């Protein structure tokens, strides 16, 4: 069996494997499309091999949209024999996990360019807009409203609804990076990022417990919340300068090491080690004195009131006044700092045969509330310097299986790439997440000095002849 057959077999198996309904959370495919400048993002030490430089098409060099929900339609809906759909509160509760995350991200490169410098170095410059939003719904938070506090699940038990929350971030990242070859095998690199925050919602603390007495149904709720926001359009006093008032910095650091005549490449990096200070249009919602407690065991009314329905008037106001005991205050102008979601990468790739790489990339993301990790494995076909095709699977803490695929193709200086999660099983009923990225770059090919010298020598030889 020749190598072409092997390739075709692998491709076929991969595609066949793709018919399985899959869930993919975080895509590592872009890091395997090594002819694209975007593949360098996860490690500032990486070079764009064979290219003297690159320029991203303004606003179109990288458009990345991703979204994920914790359940798919098939899990939520129960089709009947007659084709109608049943959506029931009990079904929704049963399908929920402990943490149910709804997330969306949009990343757009406004400007991106880079160039080779000082023979062994590479300079990278980029301006990008990064927008993310995440809602985490603890099972008990939504379950409480689906099943009710009088259900067997919650009656007489302390229900912990803590750590549900909303997180939203929008900022502009202006980055300047440099990578340097050291010797034959080692490269190191770093990137400095200046960050300009536009909007932020940060649920720093959201502790909520609820208890319903099984006999009297008296309810006790305890809260301790701290939510910071910076939303320039939330109030009527908006100034354009507010969009530039929230600033921060971040760093990326990385290194790569080649072995076995560059067949084996090891890499490690830390990305987005930084913070943003929020100063403009801030509002903080926080519990007073470390949290409040609301207890309601019924209306305290006289016998006469019990027998007089109009006695209920005004009692509702008494209840609402009691709810104020939860004690949440709003503070305007409070400054706060948020940390970026720092990522740690460690990976390796091995050239099995020329034009075929096997790679693995481990990623650990340090979120404010969660630590997510994933391991991506991929098979990348590089038959020529102008074409990459990569297919792979990502194993993550959220989902065991996540197939993806992508390609990049150069036509002279023009480059187009496209990658996506969930290539197969992309149906409305089964989809839970999608991550699509595409873009256009212009790449400047590095002059092949050996080929040039050989050509020169051949010409001289011909001339001499």
């Amino acid at each position, binding site marked *: 069996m020749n190598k*072409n057959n092997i390739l075709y077999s692998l491709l076929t198996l991969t595609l066949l494997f793709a018919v399985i309904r899959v869930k993919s959370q975080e895509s590592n495919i872009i890091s395997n499309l090594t002819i694209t400048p975007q593949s360098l993002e996860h490690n500032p030490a990486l070079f764009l091999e064979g290219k003297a430089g690159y320029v991203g098409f303004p606003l179109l060099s990288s458009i990345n949209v991703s979204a994920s929900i914790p359940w798919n339609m098939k899990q939520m809906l129960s089709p009947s024999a007659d084709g109608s759909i049943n959506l029931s509160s009990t079904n929704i509760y049963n399908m929920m996990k402990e943490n149910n995350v709804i997330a969306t991200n949009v990343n757009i490169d406004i400007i991106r360019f880079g160039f080779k410098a000082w023979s062994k170095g590479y300079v990278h410059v980029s301006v990008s807009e990064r927008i993310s939003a995440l809602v985490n719904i603890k099972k008990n938070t939504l379950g409480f409203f689906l099943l009710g506090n*009088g259900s067997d699940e919650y009656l007489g038990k302390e229900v912990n609804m803590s750590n549900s929350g909303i997180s939203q971030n929008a900022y502009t990242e202006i980055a300047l990076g440099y990578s340097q070859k050291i010797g034959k095998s080692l490269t190191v690199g770093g990137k400095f990022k200046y960050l300009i925050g536009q909007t932020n919602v940060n649920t720093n603390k959201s502790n909520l417990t609820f208890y*319903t007495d099984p006999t009297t149904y008296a309810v006790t709720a305890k809260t301790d919340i701290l939510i910071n926001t910076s939303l320039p359009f939330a109030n009527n006093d908006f100034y354009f300068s507010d969009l530039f008032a929230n600033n921060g910095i971040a760093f990326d650091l990385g290194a790569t090491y080649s072995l076995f005549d560059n067949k084996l490449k090891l890499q490690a990096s830390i990305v987005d080690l930084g913070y943003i200070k929020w100063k403009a249009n801030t509002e903080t919602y926080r519990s007073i004195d470390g949290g409040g407690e609301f207890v309601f065991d019924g209306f305290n009314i006289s016998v*006469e009131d019990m027998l007089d329905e109009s006695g209920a008037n005004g009692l509702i106001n008494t209840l609402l006044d009691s709810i104020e005991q939860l004690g949440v205050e709003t503070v305007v102008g409070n400054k706060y700092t948020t940390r970026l979601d720092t990522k740690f990468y460690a990976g390796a790739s091995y050239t099995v045969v020329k034009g075929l790489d096997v790679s693995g990339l481990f990623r650990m993301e340090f979120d404010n509330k969660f630590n997510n990790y994933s391991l991506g494995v991929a098979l990348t076909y590089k038959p020529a310097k102008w074409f990459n095709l990569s297919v792979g699977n990502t194993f993550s803490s959220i989902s065991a299986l996540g197939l993806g695929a992508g390609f990049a193709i150069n036509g002279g200086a023009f480059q187009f790439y496209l990658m996506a999660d969930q290539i197969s099983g992309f149906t409305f009923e089964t989809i839970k997440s999608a991550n699509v990225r595409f873009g256009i770059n212009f790449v400047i090919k590095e002059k092949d000095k050996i080929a040039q010298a050989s050509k020169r020598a051949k010409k001289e030889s011909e001339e001499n002849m």
Partner: protein
Amino acid sequence: MRKITLISLLVLFTFVVSCSKYDFNDVNINYDGEWAVPIISSRLDFGDLSNTDSDVMHYDEDGFIRLIYRGNNIGSYYLGDILKIPPQQSSTRLDFSIPPIPFDPGVDIPLLKIPITIPFQLDENMMDARLDKVVLKEGILRINPLFAEEPHGISVKSMTITIDNLIGVNGSPAVLVVVPGRDNYIDMNGCTLKMPTNELNINIDMQLNKPYTYPYMGQDCSLLFYFEMNDIKYKEIRGYLGNIQATYADTIYIHLFDKSVGGNITIPMFKAELNIKSSIGASLGIYEQCFKAVARGNKPDMVITGLPQSVVIKKPAVEHGFSDVTVTLQSQSLSKAISDMYEKFAFEYMIKLNPEHTEENYVFDDSMIDMEVDFEIPLSGSLESVVFADTMRLDIPEVEMLNKLVVNTNMTNNFPLGVKFQIYFLDENHKPIKYPNGTVATLFPLIEPLIVPAAVGSDGKVIAPSNKITTIEISSEAVQTLKNTMYISLVAIIDSEGYNGNKQIKLYNTGYFDVKIGMKVKADISVNSNDNY
């Protein structure tokens, strides 16, 4: 190899692109959450339960409760309301002669002096009264004369009327100078009437003008006097007032029994007293005309017997002072009326002055008679199947989305009383609502002992509260049946339980009910996208 690839691709396309098999035009959304809310958490003491004012409840040193209805005023009258001097109105014709006058312009017509007597009309029951002295604070005396026949050629020059027994503020008889054509009156404020014979004695001095022609041959004349005395209010009366009588009626309510409709309560130490005070300068007789216990509904009224039929109170020893008398009201029928929990007692009585003999009387404008009944109900006794009932309006909203309704009651009781409870659901015509199977709709299947008596020690005091949790489940079918409810009828049956199961108990101020009521509902909401709203 390429063929395998092509086949794989075909298989892939077969599986990859699958159209949604869901019809999103036909979506059923179901919600069946179950919600529990506390409704009531109240501590009720005896005052809350019995709707008794705090000034009625009195506590002994050990906290034992007595209900003392003190100063329950059944009648308070100023004598001015009983003894009134009626307005007077009469006319008197006076005939007199003018003698012949010879031709002598220098001779005046002599002054005519004419006395008249006008009877003073009093009320029937004062026919033998004697008004020795009546000091007036208000009143108008109007006297207007009119010649019945105009004497020929004669006219009145002046007329002065003196009322001999109406003494003015200057101490002299009141004088009225009559001006023809005007409203002639005397303001009697501050004047004193002295009418031991119930007559007004009036003297008229009349000076006529000289005749137009001489000689004047003389004439018989008549003079009409219109006499009015109105708005007579007195400050003081002395004399003898006769046997003035007045009849009055009043009612006493015992709110403790407001809602009772049956059963038996025994309060052996019940006491009642009638207190009468009078500052009227005359002896008074109070005569019971009627005393009965009045009940609501079909319960018959009960005539209270065995009480004193009359009471005489003497004249006060000093003027502006009071005399008083207290009568103990104790009779078997009164005790039975309390025991049967009549909540209303109606009185009718007659007051009569000078019931026994004639004596000198005096009254002032602030003289009064005041009658009060004091009830003392020590809360010691027994209750046997005492039924309290009430009906109230209650609109149960039409809820089609309830699967089940559960009501939980948690009753902690620190009274030695047990309460059975039931609620009936009534429609707009106050008729009981029935379930489809014909049974009357009630909150409990059987009347429920919702509250259990607290444990009582040998000294009759509660030693430990009781606690009872009751769960009432109402199915969705029952909820649908009850949606026509407009009223509910609450019935509570109370029994006392003392030491060793004895019915005799005492109530102390440490008693209370802790009432906690919660409700749990299970929703059953189904919405279809094709439903019209």
